[in-house]
């Protein structure tokens, strides 16, 4: 199908993200990128696991982490993953307004998550846990901070997609862009699942 073709709900293809060559390329290329991201985060996780006991007599993980805050952040990010699934559901049904609405909800939840993380980091710095305080501090902020940077980038990405296409409506040019952005958002949650398990929960168990 052609990228610039005017479409209705009847003529909109079942898999709009892969209906054009450009879309297929984006889809395949993005999964290659996600494979690379997996390796990037694995190296940060591995470094953290190796260094997490080197606290240099600073605060230990079990003294630092607050289970309620982490639980709230986890619930927010998991819910935002569901709302972006809803957005893609409406995209496949060619309901542009509803898709934008659910992406907007996703965006706000992402912002709430980021706010919680900034609050958390500020609190840790006051407790004497900084990037340079110990090897535990460096590896902790490198890992969790890289994830936070991904959330920030995702917010900028989804936000600019929504604004750029607000008046354009849905077509085969922007459908793959939305699809790929939602994949990215899910991947952020995938990484967070391992962060809350390996960093926070295992840290609190000791």
């Amino acid at each position: 199908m052609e990228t610039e073709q005017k479409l209705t709900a009847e003529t909109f293809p079942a898999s709009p993200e892969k209906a054009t060559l450009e879309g297929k390329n984006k889809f395949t290329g993005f999964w290659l990128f996600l494979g690379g991201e997996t390796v990037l985060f694995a190296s940060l996780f591995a470094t953290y696991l190796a260094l997490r006991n080197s606290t240099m007599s600073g605060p230990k993980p079990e003294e630092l982490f607050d289970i309620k805050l982490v639980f709230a952040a986890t619930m927010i990010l998991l819910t935002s993953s569901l709302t972006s699934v809803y957005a893609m559901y409406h995209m496949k049904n060619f309901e542009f307004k509803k898709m934008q609405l659910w992406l907007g909800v996703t965006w706000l939840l992402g912002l709430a998550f980021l706010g919680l993380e900034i609050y958390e980091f500020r609190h840790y710095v006051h407790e004497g846990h900084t990037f340079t305080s110990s090897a535990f501090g460096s590896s902790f902020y490198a890992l969790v901070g890289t994830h936070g940077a991904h959330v920030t980038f995702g917010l900028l990405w989804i936000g600019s997609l929504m604004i750029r296409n607000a008046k354009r409506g849905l077509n085969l040019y922007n459908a793959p862009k939305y699809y790929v952005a939602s994949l990215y958002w899910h991947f952020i949650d995938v990484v967070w699942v391992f962060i809350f398990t390996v960093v926070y929960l295992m840290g609190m168990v000791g």
Partner: protein
Amino acid sequence: MTTNQSNSDNPRLNLEYRKKRNAEDMKMQVVSFAMMLFLTLIAFFAVYQEFSGWYIMPVIVLLAVVQVIFQLYYFMHMNHKGHTIPAFFLYSGVLVALLTILAFVTIIWW
């Protein structure tokens, strides 16, 4: 209309058929969300109750792996057709990831 990927030539019928399929997909995704929520709650509850450490760690890591499988196959649609190459890319990444972590927690010391 070969592009509609459906077995009927009537666009109106096609649309209904597709909407129904999309709704079924969505139902599965809500179910998987409930499962992911449940797995998260178990993991947090186990740590909150302060069960013994060595017993709990493999369990919560397993819960995380199962939750990520739900995320990949339902939320990221890896259960749909046409995901052979994405699976190849992702599992290549996972293989390197596992080797890296294995090396850093076993044979490297600081």
